[in-house]
């Protein structure tokens, strides 16, 4: 749509069927996972090779539809067999009452927060910040939904959105903490750790159950689709 308006474009493409259907003027097909179009975090030379190959398409005159394939895989795709999580946690049980969930989550979060601080110091950044409330407020807020409450925060219009973005922040904080030290694990290793080894992951699965039973349609939709990825849904 931008090319039609006079702007030369080049696409970093991750999904081949979409490129084949839309036939953009220039696309570089990348063999990376969704979420990493430049391939490799903290690897400037790798990212530069991706970006330059995409930009060089702009100098070709043999359009109108150019498609190239990037020749390299990104190394961090593969699991790291010697990886040890930066946070050591007990395998969570599954509390039944909201108060028990809140207590278990508070204890775990208190153990994770100092490790998260190490991540922020090491990488100079954090992606936590969508919830509209600080981590210290999360336990009481999230577990109140287990009792049928529908609280919200000023940043978000509805309880469903407030909980949805709290879930995003929760996953981000844990995901960052577990990458705080040493060489990075694969994305899959982080997901398996979060959904299998943390109270926070189990709490999100419990909240999904509550959301699906809710009479609040927005919460039902958000909980069903945006809390737990399909591979980690309870069987």
């Amino acid at each position, binding site marked *: 749509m931008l090319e039609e308006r006079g702007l030369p474009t080049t696409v970093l493409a991750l999904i081949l069927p979409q490129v084949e259907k839309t036939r953009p003027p220039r696309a570089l097909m990348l063999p990376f996972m969704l979420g990493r179009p430049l391939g490799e975090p903290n690897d400037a030379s790798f990212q530069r090779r991706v970006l330059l190959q995409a930009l060089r398409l702009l100098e070709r005159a043999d359009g109108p539809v150019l498609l190239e394939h990037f020749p390299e895989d990104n190394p961090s795709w593969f699991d790291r067999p010697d990886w040890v999580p930066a946070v050591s946690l007990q395998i969570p049980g599954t509390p039944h009452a909201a108060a028990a969930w809140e207590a278990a989550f508070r204890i775990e979060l208190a153990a994770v927060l100092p490790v998260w601080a190490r991540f922020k110091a090491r990488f100079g950044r954090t992606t936590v910040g969508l919830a509209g409330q600080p981590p210290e407020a999360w336990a009481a807020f999230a577990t109140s939904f287990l009792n049928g409450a529908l609280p919200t925060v000023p940043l978000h219009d509805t309880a469903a959105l407030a909980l949805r973005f709290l879930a995003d922040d929760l996953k981000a904080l844990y995901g960052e903490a577990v990458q705080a030290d040493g060489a990075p694990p694969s994305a899959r290793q982080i997901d398996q750790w979060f959904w299998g080894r943390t109270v926070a992951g189990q709490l999100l699965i419990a909240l999904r159950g509550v959301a699906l039973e809710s009479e609040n349609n927005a919460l039902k939709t958000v909980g069903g689709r945006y809390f737990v*990825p399909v591979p980690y849904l309870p069987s």
Partner: protein
Amino acid sequence: MARLEDIPEPTRTAVANIPCPSFDTAPFVHGPPLSQRRVAIVSSAALIHRGDRPFPFGSGEYRAVPGVWNNNDILVSHVSINFDRAGFQRDINVIWPIDRLRELAAEGVIGSVASTHYTVMGSTDPAAMVESADGIAAALLADRCDAVVLAPV
């Protein structure tokens, strides 16, 4: 090779079969050598500044990402939970290659970097983004841009 085949079902089929527009025209705009181009990024990651409201679900709007924003203040508000976040948690350049563009400009490989970049919610039906395309194109042309990197998430 990753990666479409590594996306779990039913998301994989949904992604592969997502309705895509087909276009009657095949525009192809020529331009000067890369070393003279002014380059912008347009991202479908629904980027926001820390503290701003996330993109609403299904929104066809676009938002500006000024070049002066600190990388640590740029957050992803895209609705999907089916893409990796661990990569950009460590390094925003894996979805938003702003530092790489600045290096290429400093070396003279590209001419310059746009003063402002743009972002949309990639899960929205493109049919709802026609006005946004108008707005983004007008803004980029006014900034004398003649190259756009379209970055997904």
